């Protein structure tokens, strides 16, 4: 741990407003003197909580991709659409730019998030001192891109709400959408429970020693 990190100095850093404060010995649960947030040196049980959420997401991502996310019923029969078949539909109808976008947001991003978080957790558990800066950047990237996976949830919502014309077709949401929504929310929680400061705890005082600025 870096000798000047708040935890090493016996201080609390607030998650919400970044203020550094001295703990009161009498308090069992410390609160930030400025914003009132509960203070922890590190997010509590960060590694095990993030693992728990991550494993749940690994399980749910299978039905999210295999089960249909919507069902279209029309005079000509019914059709079930998975996330991937929705992408293929966009591609074959000529909207290849949107097809790529949806493929990225709905397929690549969730999987990349799971892999990246797994890597971050393993590196923290092995107390790897390597590339802390790059790992922190990776963490920020996955916090930033995670929300874009919600795209397909909104598409399903709008299609279901609009296509209710009896003469045309009826679109209903299917169980895959629930699993997919759960994956997005759970991976967002997983990236919130992960504490990036753990990346730096095992680098000692040489945080800038082996990586490029």
């Amino acid at each position: 741990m870096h000798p000047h990190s708040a935890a090493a100095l016996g201080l609390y850093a607030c998650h919400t407003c970044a203020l550094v404060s001295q703990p009161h010995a009498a308090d069992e649960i410390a609160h930030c003197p400025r914003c009132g947030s509960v203070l922890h040196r590190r997010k509590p049980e960060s590694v095990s909580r993030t693992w728990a959420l991550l494993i749940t997401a690994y399980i749910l991502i299978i039905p999210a991709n295999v089960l249909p996310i919507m069902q279209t019923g029309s005079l000509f029969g019914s059709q079930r659409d998975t996330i991937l078949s929705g992408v293929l539909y966009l591609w074959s109808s000529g909207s290849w730019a949107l097809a790529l976008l949806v493929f990225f947001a709905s397929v690549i991003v969730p999987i990349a998030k799971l892999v990246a978080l797994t890597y971050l957790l393993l590196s923290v558990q092995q107390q790897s001192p390597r590339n802390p800066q790059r790992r922190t950047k990776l963490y920020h990237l996955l916090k930033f891109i995670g929300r874009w996976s919600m795209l397909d949830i909104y598409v399903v919502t709008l299609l279901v709400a609009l296509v209710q014309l009896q003469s045309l077709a009826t679109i209903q949401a299917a169980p895959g959408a629930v699993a997919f929504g759960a994956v997005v929310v759970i991976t967002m929680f997983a990236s919130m429970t992960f504490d990036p400061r753990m990346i730096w705890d095992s680098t000692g005082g040489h945080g800038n020693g082996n990586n490029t600025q």
Partner: protein
Amino acid sequence: MPTNPLIACHDCDLVQHEVPLPLGGVATCARCGAVLYRSSRYGKSHTLALCITAAILLVIANIFPIIGIESQGNRHQSTLFGAVQTLWQEDMGLIAGLVFFTILLVPALELTLLIWLHVTSRITSGLAALALRLVVAMQPWRMVEVFMLGLLVSVVKLSHLAHIVPGVALWCFAALLPLFALLNTTFNPRELWAAMPLKQ
């Protein structure tokens, strides 16, 4: 307490002094390079103006239909809340809740709290601290820009099926997009935190 309180980097926990910044400046962590805080080029009145504009648009966006479709003389249109209700009736409560929360509740609550924080004279109260904490916690869950992209994908998918009639709310959401992006750059929680007293 000293006038320049100590802050710690949220990424690597390094303790450092807050330094005053020039307008538009960015303070980064000495060790890991993370952005610690910015000094907004714009004042609080800019943020307030943006919030009020966004709030008005959000209200209109929720009253009027987003899009409608027309086919063989049939017309069907839906508001955002109508879409949530349809999903709810189809036992898709989780998705209905998620859409309601991320597109309706979070932006509405966030704008309300921000407007209150910028006009209140009780900025030093515990209530203001609680409100600001809520705003900071809610930020990752506001997904208006993702919704806008979903709207675009839906329109493309539907255009093969029926004639599309864009609704008033569609333009409102389109206008909300740059407003929220601007709000992200002008709103500076640190300036509000700095106005709040420390409890002993």
